[in-house]
């Protein structure tokens, strides 16, 4: 009796579950209908273009139909992997995206925590505004400012260094290959630090003041309070931002590299996207360009998994 009842209830549970899904779907048909446009949007803009990847396996000629294209298999990928320049650009892409993540993520947190300790509210607000304004300046302008500042001909940085007697000849920042990654990273931080700190400042503002008071009573100094209350308090926010940043590893873009670079540092400034643009679209070699693009995506996915792996190890939480 007991067994049959159990068996019965089990089979009915499955039936019920099946039923409930369709029932729920029916009940929520308006919700499904409402989400449909977004599903279509994602499909059209994120999945349909993947069809263009077929170009990488053809000798694509514009203007003729898909069926008339000449198929060449993996030829373009083989050419790509034999290309020295490709490895250079790959190295540069990886290096600059990691530097960007490492510093572009940690510095705003430190900045937000420190700024939060500032008592004077007017001063605090002024600093905040000043630091996030560069976010709205385009890279063209930023690149102009950076080259001007690092110029050997009356550039501010060189003037200061010479005035302090650290160097006796102007230093050619923009002409040194080894400095390029650093310059890109620092100018990126200068541009985005304030903006990225806003969200952390908001999170800090939401922390319960009682916690601080309690800590104070217990004799915790300022540093202790930062370490034991502020940081753990904004931990969820940090995680969310990290997830978003990892997602953006894919798009390190090429404007900064293009605008700040010059022919002397090209071995350190050319990134995959720029390479795809120059050799793909620039020369009308659509197939080769697509092959680079595909590989770029592969790199991004690899980066994503790597970052997620590290993340999981330290936080026991997974992004994906």
């Amino acid at each position, binding site marked *: 009796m007991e067994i049959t009842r159990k068996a019965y209830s089990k089979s009915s549970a499955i039936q019920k579950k099946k039923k409930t899904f369709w029932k729920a779907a029916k009940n929520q048909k308006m919700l499904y209908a409402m989400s449909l446009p977004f599903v279509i949007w994602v499909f059209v803009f994120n999945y349909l273009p993947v069809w263009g990847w077929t170009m990488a396996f053809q000798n694509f000629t*514009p203007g003729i139909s898909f069926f008339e294209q000449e198929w060449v298999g993996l030829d373009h990928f083989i050419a790509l992997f034999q290309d020295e320049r490709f490895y250079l650009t790959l190295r540069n892409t990886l290096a600059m995206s990691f530097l960007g993540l490492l510093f572009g993520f940690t510095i705003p947190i430190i900045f937000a925590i420190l700024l939060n300790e500032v008592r004077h509210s007017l001063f605090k607000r002024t600093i905040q505004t000043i630091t996030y304004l560069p976010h709205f300046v385009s890279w063209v302008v930023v690149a102009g400012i950076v080259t001007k500042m690092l110029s050997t001909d009356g550039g501010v940085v060189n003037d200061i260094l010479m005035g302090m007697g650290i160097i006796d000849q102007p230093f050619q920042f923009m002409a040194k290959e080894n400095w390029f990654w650093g310059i890109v990273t620092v100018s990126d931080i200068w541009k985005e630090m304030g903006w990225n700190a806003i969200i952390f400042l908001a999170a800090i503002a939401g922390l319960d003041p009682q916690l601080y008071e309690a800590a104070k009573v217990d004799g915790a100094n300022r540093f202790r309070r930062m370490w034991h209350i502020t940081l753990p308090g904004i931990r969820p926010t940090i995680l969310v931002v990290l997830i978003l940043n990892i997602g953006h590893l894919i798009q390190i873009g090429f404007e900064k590299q293009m605008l700040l670079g010059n022919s002397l540092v090209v071995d350190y400034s050319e990134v995959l996207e720029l390479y795809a643009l120059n050799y793909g679209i620039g020369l009308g070699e659509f197939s080769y360009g697509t092959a680079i693009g595909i590989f770029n995506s592969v790199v991004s996915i690899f980066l994503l998994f790597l970052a997620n792996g590290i993340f999981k190890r330290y936080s026991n939480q997974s992004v994906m």
Partner: protein
Amino acid sequence: MKELKKIFSLIFIVALLSFMVACQDNEEDVASDSGDDDGTIELTVFDSDTNSDWEEMKSPVGQKIVEDTGVTLKPEFDIEGGQTKIPLMIASGEYPDMILSKGGGQLVEAEALIDLAPLIEEHAPNIKKMLGEELNRLKWSKEDPSIYVLTNAAVENQAMSPNFGAWVQHAVVKELGYPKIRTLEDLESVIREYKELHPTIDGQKTIGLSMNTDEWRIQSAFLNSGFMMTGGSDDGEYFIDPETFDATLHYRRPIEKKVFEWYNKMNAEGLLDSETFVQKHDQYTAKLASGRVLATIGPDYLMYEGQSALREAGMEERMYGQYPVTLNEDYVSHAYHSNGLQAGWGISITKDCKDPVRAIKFLDYLASEETQIMLNWGIEGEHYEIVDGKRVIPEEEREKRNNDKDYLKKTGIGYNFLRYVPHWGDGVVDSTGQTITVNTREEAIKNQTDIEKEVLAAYDVELWKDLYPAMEEFPVKAWGAAYNISIPASSDLKVLNQRALDVTKKLVPEAVLTSPDQFDEIWSKFMTNLEKNNIEKAEEEYTQLIKDRVELWNN
């Protein structure tokens, strides 16, 4: 929940509104597209060059054109020669009515352009008259003799100012007693002497030699000086042997090493601006305008901005004179070596054009004698006057022409419209025997500043061009200019060229900036790198292209 509903409905309303607005725009587009033969029509044109003087058909000249033809041009200007946008157009398959390209190879391959030959034959008497026999040069290839690209070059041009040279400040030559400036060595000693005399100018450090090397300008100013200093004429990255038509990547000529070695020496001695290969175009122009760059080397069109800024600021003694400097006296400057009619770059009508006949008629109108005069001189009674049957620019107007930076924009004169059609060059005369362009010898002399006249007189000439070997001294190049031969999209020459250029742009500046004892080493590394990138194959293919062109044009 109620709040949420409110927000959602708001979002929906905004979305709906923007969608409606978008639809409305479309309708408007359709309405303006339709235009009949007598009515007005808007022709879109993609222009591979920038034009900061574009006047939106609102200037007096622009208005007159609209009135005469009913055509309103709607150009889209590009900052990088259409390198990205033209391939994107091809990929999307949507074209404007006309495209002004720097070589239509990709477009022809994609069958985006229509054959202009029958249209010119039927509707364009003025263009036919202007180009005459040389219309032959516009044929595409042996297999396909269609005309896809109508050149926009100057016809029979005898430019009043040379297109390349070494530029030296008037103040420098004046103070040094007008030394002869004919070779790189002369140039070097002039710069050195003056720099020693004046370590600072207006309180800022004197810069000996600076050059504009921002992006593509590194080719036109710095890299091209390799062949310009050693008796070559401008064929882009290649040097073409005038007898055998063999193409050589010009750096591979042993003699050019000497030129770049000279730059290296200049750098070692601190006479070369240390920022030469780092500075952007605006930084360079600003330096020229500050009046402390003693000399520069490059084409004339990279000098206009700096020169006019100096003139406007009244620093006329800091403006530049132009000298035909070469490596040594065995070579002469080929700045005036004529290409003949330049074919390759120019305007095309696309297959998407609303009305190709209207388009060609419009271009023909621009090429007519009457319009050409208007585009050069302006409107009679407004920008020039006729005195005793001769066109004369009044003093007041000339003042504006010389000193008002926005003159072209305000009037519509000049390259605003001339850029779209073949146009008569300097020195060509119209049916009344007067020159069609404003740049006559007399005008050129009138436009000089006092100090410029003084310097020229000291060198015993009237114009800078008199220092140069004249056009008649060189035979017309049978292949035109090699750089505007369009490379078939299927050929791998494009990739080979790009690779060679990548190597060049990196290693030549490196060679110049290194210490003199390492120059040889880097230069030979440059040579081996070029070979590794299959430059010999590229040269072979290029030679074939040149030979094909010579054959096509001379039949």
